């Protein structure tokens, strides 16, 4: 597998150098691997910090800016960042009103963010934490590490970010984040595996004519392999898997997400099918975002995240946001 890289060891810092070059509105600490909005700490604002393994871009660094994250901490590819990064980020963005850690539910992320919270609290920063666990492909039971955090992370970061930007206190920002987590579910499908720079060959074998249902965003195999399906059949399967777990009585926000290697042309065609299925299931759609936002490097495939949204969440969704990857209203 060919990659546009120098050496596998520097992909993350190389990308951070590129972010620094392209985004003067961000402060990028390449050495310590922290991306912070330039005007941080914003006076009287709760700080929002997230992070996770690299390879999911634009998540999280692409979501740093007014109306969304105050800071992001990228780990190595598919490897949670280390506690020092999040502790440093928390210190950089805390205005005195506390910091919310947005953590995707993976053992590594949870453990490292927890250690970071201890470090930050030692430094006098008040820290709250919200766990994102939206992936219905994983059974949430004592026999698993719990559902994975995937596409819903975008909704949590956007909506809690808007609440923080509006001046809400830490408990309120945390409550919004929790509401979003509880209201969001996702399911993903891979048409091809992805290739990490360190390994150089696809993380699993996916023969022509087969696809993988219920994949995560770390190049893990999914729960089930099936014969290839049409975009319409995939939409039926994916949306029904989500609706099995989330029975919305309010309109939903829909993220029709590409895994990285799927052309936008295909993704829009898939979005049409997702809308068709939602219509057939009598689910009202308040807004749809189509694009590759929560990715797995070059994996071909897609995921759908639905977030049931009340009036307030819809208002927070519409609120201005100004980040490299998501921007409107300013």
């Amino acid at each position, binding site marked *: 597998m060919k990659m546009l890289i120098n050496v596998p060891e520097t992909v993350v810092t190389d990308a951070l150098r590129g972010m620094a070059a392209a985004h003067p509105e961000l402060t990028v600490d390449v050495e310590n691997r922290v991306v912070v909005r330039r005007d941080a700490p914003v006076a009287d604002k709760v700080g929002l910090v997230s992070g996770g*393994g690299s390879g999911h871009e634009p998540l999280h660094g692409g979501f740093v800016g007014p109306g969304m994250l105050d800071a992001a901490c990228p*780990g*190595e*590819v*598919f*490897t*949670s*960042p*280390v*506690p*020092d990064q999040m502790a440093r980020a928390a210190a950089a963005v805390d205005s005195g009103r506390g910091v919310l850690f947005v953590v995707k539910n*993976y*053992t*590594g992320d949870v*453990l*490292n963010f927890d*250690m970071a919270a201890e470090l930050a609290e030692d430094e006098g920063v008040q820290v709250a934490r919200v766990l994102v666990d939206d992936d219905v*492909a*994983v*059974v949430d039971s*004592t*026999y*698993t*590490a719990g559902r*994975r955090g995937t596409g819903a992370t975008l909704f949590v970061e956007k909506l809690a970010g808007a609440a923080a930007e509006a001046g809400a206190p830490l408990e309120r920002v945390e409550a919004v984040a929790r509401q979003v987590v509880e209201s969001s579910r996702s399911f993903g499908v891979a048409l091809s595996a992805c290739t*990490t720079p*360190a*390994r150089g060959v696809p*993380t*699993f074998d996916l023969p022509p004519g087969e696809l993988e249902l219920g994949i*995560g965003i*770390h*190049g*893990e*195999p999914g*729960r089930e392999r099936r014969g290839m399906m049409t975009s319409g059949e995939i939409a039926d399967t994916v949306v029904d898997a989500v609706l099995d777990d989330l029975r919305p009585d309010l309109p939903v926000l829909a993220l029709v997400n590409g895994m990285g290697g799927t052309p936008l042309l295909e993704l829009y065609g898939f979005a049409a099918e997702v809308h068709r299925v939602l219509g057939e299931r009598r689910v009202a759609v308040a807004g749809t975002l189509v694009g590759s936002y929560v990715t797995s490097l070059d994996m071909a495939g897609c995921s759908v995240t639905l977030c049931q949204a009340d009036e307030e969440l819809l208002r927070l969704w519409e609120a201005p946001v100004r980040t490299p990857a998501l921007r409107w209203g300013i």
Partner: protein
Amino acid sequence: MTVALDADFFRRWMSAVSAAVDREADQLTELDSAIGDADHGANMRRGLTAAVASLEEEAPSSPGAVLALAGRRLISTVGGASGPLYGTLLRRTGKALGAEDSVDPGRLREALRAGVEAVAQLGSAARGDKTMLDALYPAVEALGDSGDDFGAARRAAEEGAAATVPMRARRGRASYLGERSVGHQDPGATSSALLFAALADTAGTVATGESA
């Protein structure tokens, strides 16, 4: 024969683990790609390289300080699940060893027991969950009452790692696979076996008077 283990012994142990992980990194990553996310080899290599460099630089003078420093370095350079877990294993073990200049194997065994318990608590995991614990627990037990049966510990760790193959994972990424996790050896248990193999090798050179 019971020997007193000094800071140098522990430094050499860590160097030996680092060398073993270097050698086996691709294999660890390969195992992790079957039921995880293909980074365990790179993770362990990055952390142990940093730990060994810090040990050389700071040259802590007690066994406890050596393991505590190595553990801290793992935590601040690895990330992922293995960083905090192995970091905690070494830090807690180091802490339990206290500040003495040298410790006997029985003391090490008790300290390791505390370290492994801390791992189990941090990860909310138990034996049989198909994790590093499935190598760590039996290895510590096999050290024996006097704590110096390093060869038995190595074998127990290897057997423990091998015994993860038929298990269904209940913790970590592999748990997402459900039944599909069966049939693969756990990468973390495999690196734990390297930890005890390196311990046995290091102890072997002590026992026979070789230098590392």
